[in-house]
């Protein structure tokens, strides 16, 4: 089923719903995108926009009361993650899609040595039994790739600094050489310098192993450093997607424009003049039409009745906004 041309991950119309007392709430509302082989796609947005829920859905880890209600996610043009049964799912997890978790401060089991947590994934997914020595060599090779000293092997998580923990998580993610890694805010809990070191580790590992990376984050600056393409999410939908330089340098969707205008830089002083600061939309009572209408400065009548679809607004750049009705090339 696999062939060279198909993307590492193709997501179509993915929707995740949360049941609440006030009715169903669409945390992810029909999201489509694909990650090419060897590509880094950044999925960016503010808190509550559905980016983490999307990542969790791709690993089928959406917790109750949430559930995937529609869509498909094809790995390498083949298996559809959304439709797998438990057994298939277990074999896909980590072998085909691995996760570098958010923060990583609490992602390692506090009562297990680092080696056992890494050993866990290797032993579980290899068909043959791995001997102690071979296992050790494999783990130390992984440490070398992410720049960890080999003494980490025997340590417990609480004996590691934040950056080291995150590198353990990266080592764990690449243990089975998966074609796709999802990194959920991999550096958000770290100090700036350590963040840079860890991000560079992730980039160099990606370079060496040639995997694809879906990078979830809120930091536009970090996306600029790492991603080949970015997709901007708002209220559970992708509002703009395209090459990083295009989306960050020439944003077309009003939300993307707001987001980028609000990022402070070291070149300019003073605060940007922001419009209304209505908070994130109420997902349970979605307005008719565009979800961004209440905060948008260029809102039109059509925005209140028709939900915009993603249309081309530049080379490989698409935005969901009625300002660009026919698409712009």
């Amino acid at each position, binding site marked *: 089923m696999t062939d060279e041309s198909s993307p590492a991950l193709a997501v179509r119309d993915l929707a995740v719903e*949360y049941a609440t007392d006030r009715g169903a*709430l669409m945390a992810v509302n029909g999201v489509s995108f694909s990650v090419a082989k060897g590509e880094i796609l950044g999925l960016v947005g503010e808190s*509550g926009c559905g980016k983490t829920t999307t990542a969790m859905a791709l690993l089928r880890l959406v917790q109750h009361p949430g559930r995937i209600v529609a869509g498909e996610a094809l790995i390498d043009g083949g298996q559809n993650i959304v439709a797998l049964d438990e057994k298939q799912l277990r074999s896909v997890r980590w072998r085909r899609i691995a996760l570098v978790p958010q923060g990583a401060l609490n992602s390692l089991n506090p009562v297990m040595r680092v080696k056992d947590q890494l050993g866990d994934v290797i032993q579980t997914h290899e068909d043959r039994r791995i001997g102690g020595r071979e296992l050790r060599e494999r783990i130390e090779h992984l440490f070398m790739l992410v720049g960890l000293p080999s003494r980490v092997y025997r340590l417990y998580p609480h004996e590691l600094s934040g950056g080291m923990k995150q590198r353990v998580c990266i080592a764990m993610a690449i243990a089975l050489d998966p074609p796709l890694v999802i990194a959920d805010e991999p550096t958000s809990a770290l100090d700036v310098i350590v963040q840079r070191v860890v991000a560079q580790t992730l980039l160099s590992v990606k370079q060496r192993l040639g995997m694809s990376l879906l990078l979830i984050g809120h930091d536009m600056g970090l996306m600029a450093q790492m991603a080949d393409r970015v997709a901007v999410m708002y209220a559970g939908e992708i509002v703009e997607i395209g090459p990083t330089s295009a989306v960050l340098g020439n944003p077309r969707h009003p939300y993307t424009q707001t987001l980028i205008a609000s990022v402070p830089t070291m070149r300019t002083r003073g605060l940007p003049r922001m419009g209304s600061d209505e908070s994130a939309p109420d997902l349970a009572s979605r307005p008719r039409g565009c979800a961004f209408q209440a905060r948008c400065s260029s809102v039109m009548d059509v925005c209140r009745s028709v939900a915009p679809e993603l249309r081309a607004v530049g080379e490989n750049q698409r935005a969901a906004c009625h300002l660009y009705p026919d698409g712009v090339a």
Partner: protein
Amino acid sequence: MAETAETRRSRRRSPWLNGKLMLGIAVLVALLSLQWIGPLFVDTQEALIGSTTPNLVPVGQKANPALGFKPSKSAHPLGTDSQGRDMLAVMVVGTPRTLYVGLVAAGLGLIVGTILGFLAGFSRGLTDSTITTLTDVVLTIPPIAVLVVVAAFFTQTSVTLLALIIALFAWPTATRQIRAQVLSMREQGYVKMAQLSGASIWKVMYGEMMPNLLPYLAASFMSMMAATILVVTGLETLGLGSIRLPTLGTTINNALQASAVFRGMWWWWSPPVVVLIVIFLSLLLVTLGLDQVANPKLRKHL
């Protein structure tokens, strides 16, 4: 997501009004009020030794004359024991007394525990470590070991004195829990904010911390009450209770001493056992109910 979950909570009724909590409290209050209501219907004098004919089988039950039992007239609906106490009167007198010990001891334990818990939580350093060590030490000592000595050497222990002594062992549970809560709360922003708003330590304690402590205080009270009743009935079952007036524990002790179980006198030992089961189940219900108040995560489950 947090936002919506919380909104949902607010739309429901107060978590304090949950069924478990209400039922548990209702039963306990009913049992305690026997103290005032009971004498209207039952002659409490019949709870004393030799006040009626011994060995009467409850109304409506078949007596076994071979064992020397006689059927009861309607005057003794639960029968009588071998020493001529009317079992219904015994229950009416004994149940509130047992609950009373629990209430007094748990109340005192709560007061002492709250004071020490706040003291330890607020003053780091020596005071804190002294209180913590003392708490752990007292927790480790089986209360019954000391109470047996007390009861053995003091022949005239009134119910209140017994409650006072048991309270000496009840406070550590509360102290531990309140200290832990205070420690986590004092790092909370709202406590700092209150201080910045010029509130004294005292105001911070009762104005900011106490309201949030309520479910924990109530839960501590309930668990102390259960522990107290457990200890006091245990002590009485060992034969170390007050002899004059019956309680649930002394009744069990009397029944055991008279081999009531093996003489088939189920109406002697079973009323106190059944009442105690009801008491402990009510306490458990209250605790589970309070758990739901203090820990919203549990509400979804079970």
